[in-house]
């Protein structure tokens, strides 16, 4: 059964890499914001998988809760930035 969780962990990592491509390619900053939010929530799941594989989940669960809360705050702060500052794309436009 533990071997199965390793497999699940691999699949999850592959999917995170997929989302990561969108984070690299994303034209505007807000697309990257969504990708970072997804990677944040998925890192909670990966953390729980690691806890199960190491059979010490009672320690890892506390950090997973911490991750969930802090990811929420970072996303809200970044999103609220655009309320006031209206420029979405910086003047020169292209991202190096």
């Amino acid at each position, binding site marked *: 059964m533990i071997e199965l969780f390793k497999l699940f962990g691999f699949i999850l990592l592959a999917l995170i890499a*997929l989302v990561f491509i969108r984070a690299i390619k994303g034209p505007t900053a*807000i697309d990257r914001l*969504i990708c970072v*939010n997804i990677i944040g929530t998925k890192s909670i799941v990966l953390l*729980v998988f690691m806890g199960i594989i190491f059979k010490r989940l009672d320690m890892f669960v506390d950090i997973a809760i911490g991750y*969930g809360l802090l990811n929420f705050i970072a996303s*809200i702060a970044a999103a609220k930035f655009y309320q006031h500052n209206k420029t979405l794309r910086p003047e020169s436009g292209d991202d190096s």
Partner: protein
Amino acid sequence: MNIIIIVLISLGLFFFFGTAVGMLRLPDFYTRSHAAGKGDTLSTALILLGCALFIMHEGHYSGASILVFLKLMSIIVFVFIGSPTASHAFIDAGYETGEKQWSNKKQAKKKP
């Protein structure tokens, strides 16, 4: 019991696969965040439910595993409250900065 756990986690992974493909293929900012917001929370909830059941089953329903079960449930509740709100904030920010909706340009050229 193992079957339920495997089914739950593979369902969660499947939905997350849908989200990932949605993020890559969908053309516009709004459609992408639409896919991200929903798929993300659902897949997290399913996978964490599967892990919680596995812990309960593994720990033979002892006191410690119930505590871990409740903590995993609290994570699910937080993600259920937090992630849609964050998606709302993103779309609101996108709308504020005048992000254009995606119009199917190919049809537009063919029709006139």
